[in-house]
């Protein structure tokens, strides 16, 4: 069992490292998107899978980080590290504030409130044209200037490895958290908050920290996104984005480490191929979601997991 797990992991990462060499820049770009959403989905999984808190507003931290970094880049800061730090910090501020407001609710309420809050941010991005350029968004953002690292990120493949670096860090971090005392506590709170409080755990603090942690990784994804596309717009804060990443987590299977990655990779590929074949890609995507949830209500990864890899649960 264990050798199989190690082998699969090795194969997976080897592919991630080696494939771009053989693919055209279009497909490498696609892989970059997969990595970005992989990080984004894993970050949301902290809330959905490990805390049992279904957030429909996760685009908030993603978009705020993207806008902040993009804005600074356009202002001529010419220093990726400063731009990114600002993006992360502002995103964490948003997470800290939202956390206070939303963690007083659960379930359906939590869903609605996270949705509403992030849509408000969308509205601000839409209307605050002086800073965000409204519906046009911020564009013509150049690839990051790494200052002391001589890497030319204008090359798609180079940017891919740049993104891969963060993806690996994020995955390792998630793994550590999942297996840590903190991670186990989160899962316990997800299963029964009353039981955990009775045991002596301050459930709220854990959920709050998890919320901020989730925001942190979402901001990384957002920053990678804005530099890759060279663009950020209100849609990055819109419910459609929040829903997309939530769907990735649900479809892949919440609560496991692999599930969200499978969901993210899968949906990015699906969207891309379907839109290549038909104009009615939105309809097809919707139908696929509907059918998927009817036949695999807990996500598509768990049945796969159950059938073959029982021990991949982390």
């Amino acid at each position: 069992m264990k050798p199989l797990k190690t082998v699969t992991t090795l194969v997976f990462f080897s592919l991630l490292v080696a494939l771009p060499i053989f693919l055209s820049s279009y497909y490498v770009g696609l892989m970059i998107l997969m990595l970005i959403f992989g990080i984004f989905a894993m970050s949301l999984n902290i809330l959905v899978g490990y805390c049992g808190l279904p957030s429909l507003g996760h685009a908030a931290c993603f978009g705020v980080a993207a806008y902040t970094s993009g804005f600074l880049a356009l202002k001529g800061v010419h220093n990726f590290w400063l731009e990114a730090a600002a993006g992360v910090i502002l995103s964490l501020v948003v997470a800290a504030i939202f956390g206070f407001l939303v963690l007083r609710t659960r379930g359906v309420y939590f869903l609605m409130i996270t949705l509403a809050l992030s849509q408000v941010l969308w509205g601000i991005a839409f209307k605050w044209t002086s800073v965000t350029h409204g519906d046009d968004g911020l564009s013509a953002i150049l690839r990051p200037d790494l200052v002391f690292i001589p890497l030319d990120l204008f090359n798609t493949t180079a940017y891919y490895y740049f993104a891969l670096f963060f993806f690996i860090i994020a995955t390792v971090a998630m793994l550590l958290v999942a297996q840590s005392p903190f991670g186990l506590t989160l899962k316990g709170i997800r299963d029964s908050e009353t039981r955990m409080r009775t045991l002596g755990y301050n459930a709220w603090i854990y959920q709050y920290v998890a919320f901020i942690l989730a925001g942190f990784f979402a901001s990384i994804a957002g920053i990678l996104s804005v530099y890759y596309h060279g663009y950020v717009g209100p849609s990055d804060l819109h419910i459609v984005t929040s829903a997309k990443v939530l769907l990735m987590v649900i479809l892949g299977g919440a609560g496991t480490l692999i599930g969200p990655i499978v969901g993210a990779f899968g949906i990015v590929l699906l969207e891309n191929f379907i839109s290549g074949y038909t104009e009615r890609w939105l309809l097809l995507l919707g139908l696929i979601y509907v059918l998927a949830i009817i036949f695999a209500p807990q996500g598509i990864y768990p049945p796969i997991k159950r059938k073959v890899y029982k021990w991949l649960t982390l």
Partner: protein
Amino acid sequence: MVNFISLKATRVLETGKSASPLVITNVSKTFGRLQALDGISLSLMHGERRALIGPNGAGKTTLFHIISGILAPSSGKILILGQDVFRLPVHKRAALGVARTFQITNLLPTLSVLENILLSLQAHEPYRFVMYRPISSFGPLFLRAREILVTWGLWEWRDTEVRSLSYGEQRELEIVMALAQRPKLLLLDEPTSGLSPSETASVTRMIRNLPRDVTMLLIEHDMDVVFDLVDRLSVLHLGRLVAEGSTEEIRQDRTVQKIYLGSQA
């Protein structure tokens, strides 16, 4: 009488604790127009085994919720180990040394038996916030968990998801989890409900063997179990404390008999 006093004094000297584990003064609880509890006063001595009995709906579980902090009383005072716990959140009361089981088994269903025990053990440890090290690297924690699981015969189930266990096994696990925390005040809510005779015997044995410095308040309907395990009883009926005394006294109390016979519909 003299023996009893010197026994108590010995206990006090042994543990250095003079504060009563639980003192409830005039606690009432209303839900809208429903008076669930009315002027309950109760106090436990260190190491005492007390049963809380009464017909269904008497308010016993509500009282447990109020003691553990899940519900706030409408009026009255609660002192746990000498501390007024007014507004003290559930988890802080647990830190004082209160552990409880629930009427409806409340475990962490998707987690394994081992994980449930680990969570019980690490609840008051500072490293429960650690995010960067795998929990398996905490040697002493695992050793203690193993010790507990082996003692209670659960070691072979350690990787089983709790929801796959039988009802009886789950109930036992809940008690083990409470005991693992070495509580000073243990609240057991109908631990033998729904159990087969052999499971009941097993749980009763478990409770009988509790360390003598653990104070226990037990809600139970099975009178055989009650009379076997406790020194004193408090009888609740329609939210009021109607009788309190030793097992003999209560067994012969007319009011209590009327309540039970009367409610045997």
